[in-house]
């Protein structure tokens, strides 16, 4: 058996635009292929509107694709049955942006962490449940766990809530965690702690997919980076490589936009304007209207994602 946890093949996800008689579709994910090796965490980077969250939700089986395949440990995620489904739902956990946004204000931390376990009827006795919940809280450094378990979610700071969200997934003993913007809503001073907790989990064998618009966070967290723009992967490679030598003009723009703690160095905005609607994606290269390097060919011909070196792919006519 190979070491792939995920093998995504030519995945396409369209959403029908609401409205009677509408024949329009949002091209949220459009021909994405990606494989994820066990223990090699991947950062999926791009602006909001690039399809990252849809890709994540499709990987956990929440959204059905229009075409293409999602294989998890060799099995098609949309053709699982019975026990396989339960196992998949335990092994892969997705943590959403602001996960407790609409939570019942009476919910305790214990309830929140135990929720998934109860739903999948994973733990039997009260002791087992306690152990799973306290263990998970301990891992995310909400100590003493017995104290934190009693608190209401609504009484916690943003950073603490995010840790509860991680604990809730951990209680399921997953193999893969998919995180949607895990730190961008948090105060800069606590982001590092969440990242550290997750980095420790990586050393314990968990594989992460981190979805974010902030390439700086994934540079220090994930082993590889996939850059997404309007439903397509435009660049792929090891984090180190992609950040040190970005090949696609969009990746270059993402990197130039990251501020650094040095007043002598200013951010640059290399991409003009804003991401267009995914209902009518631009012809040719989807990035061409915003690209500082665009030529005629970019308007008419779509560049394929091609290998430029080992484990290094880019979709640009001029890279």
């Amino acid at each position, binding site marked *: 058996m190979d070491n792939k946890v995920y093998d995504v093949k030519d995945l396409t996800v369209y959403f029908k635009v609401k409205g009677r008689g509408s024949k329009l579709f949002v091209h949220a994910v459009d021909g994405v292929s990606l494989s994820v090796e066990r223990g090699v965490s991947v950062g999926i980077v791009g602006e*909001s509107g690039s399809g990252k969250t849809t890709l994540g939700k499709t990987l956990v089986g929440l959204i059905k694709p229009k075409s293409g395949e999602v294989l998890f440990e060799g099995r098609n995620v949309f053709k699982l049955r019975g026990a396989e489904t339960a196992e998949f739902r335990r092994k892969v956990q997705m943590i959403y942006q602001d996960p407790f946004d609409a939570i019942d204000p009476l919910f305790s931390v214990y309830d929140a962490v135990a929720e998934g376990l109860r739903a999948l009827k994973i733990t039997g006795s009260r002791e087992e449940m306690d152990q799973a919940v306290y263990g998970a809280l301990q891992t995310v450094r909400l100590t003493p766990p017995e104290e934190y378990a009693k608190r209401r979610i609504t009484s916690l700071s943003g950073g603490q809530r995010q840790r509860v969200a991680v604990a809730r997934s951990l209680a399921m003993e997953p193999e893969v965690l998919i995180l949607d913007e895990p730190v961008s809503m948090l105060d800069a*001073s606590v982001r*590092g*702690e969440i990242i*550290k907790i997750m980095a420790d989990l990586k050393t314990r064998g968990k594989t992460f997919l981190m979805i974010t618009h902030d390439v700086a966070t994934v540079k*220090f967290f994930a082993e590889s980076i996939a850059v997404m723009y309007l439903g397509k992967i435009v660049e792929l490679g090891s984090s180190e490589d992609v950040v040190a030598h970005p090949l696609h003009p969009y990746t270059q723009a993402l990197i130039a*936009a990251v*501020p650094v703690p040095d007043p002598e160095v*200013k951010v640059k*905005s290399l991409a003009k304007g804003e991401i267009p609607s995914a209902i009518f994606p631009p012809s040719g290269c989807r990035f061409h209207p915003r690209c500082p390097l665009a030529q005629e060919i970019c308007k008419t011909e779509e560049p394929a994602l091609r290998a430029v070196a080992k484990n290094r792919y880019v979709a640009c006519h001029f890279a």
Partner: protein
Amino acid sequence: MSGLDSVLSVEHLGVTFETPRGPLPAVNDVSFTLSGGETLGIVGESGAGKTTLATAILKLLPPNAKIVSGRVVVEGVDMMSADPDTLNKKLRWNKIAYVPQASQNALDPLYKIDDQFVETVQAHSDMSKKEILARASELLLQVGVDPVKLSSYPWQLSGGQKQRVMIALSLILNPSVIIMDEPTTALDTIIQAQILELLRQLREFQRMSSIFISHDISVIANVADRIAVMYAGKIVELGTVKEVFSDPLHPYTQGLLKSVPDMRRSESFGYIAGLPPDLVNLPPGCSFRERCPVAVEICSSITPPLENYGRNHFAACHVVGGRRVRGEA
């Protein structure tokens, strides 16, 4: 600390909220000045009192807040003693404008952008509707929004566009000072970079003074001339960005600088463990001492004052003070 050409001066400002748990001192003895054309960045984590400070300067505090000490002077006019009419017709928006936190949501979803311009401006001046719309079109162009958007509803605009509209709206009466509260926090990095570039351009063209609030010290590095670091309601460090970023004095500032990723480096970023103190039950001494890696005994009994360490670089820390006195650092 007050310069002769200061457009804004804040002196010993204190703001306390009445809460069910007791009085909550959110801003405590804050002083600084802002010179013409200057941008002051205010950085601090959630709950530090940044928004309370901003709204106190404009006297737009919620009803359960009370200014307990100090004063605010805008271009020689005392905000504290001004009557409501002077505040609305002469000071707010005319001399000092405000872009509130989460201002994308500050636009009323039921009204088109042009109506919001007219309503806001007419509350603060007697410009005619025609003048307002002409000026609004001009400003929208300047901030990079197509003036046809004047007839759009807020929900038809992206987050970045709404932020640009809010900036245009704050500029419309040519104020001397603009206070922007976390103007880029909700935006993607690419759009944030566009807004930061826009603000730099605006500063070059108009001698605008501003206060820029953010929890991200790297963002402040992009726009500010000077920086004030706030912790638990107080300014704990104040100086030019050059001084503070190259020689941070307060352990909290040092912690903030280590908490942000620096793409140019290979080592990852850290964090400041623990949480800020409960402001309702503030212990005596330095508010940061429980999280401070260098705290000594005196820190738990005596509150360190903000002291000048040369070149107008101020810090409130016993340990830094002791080291400098002994010539160790």
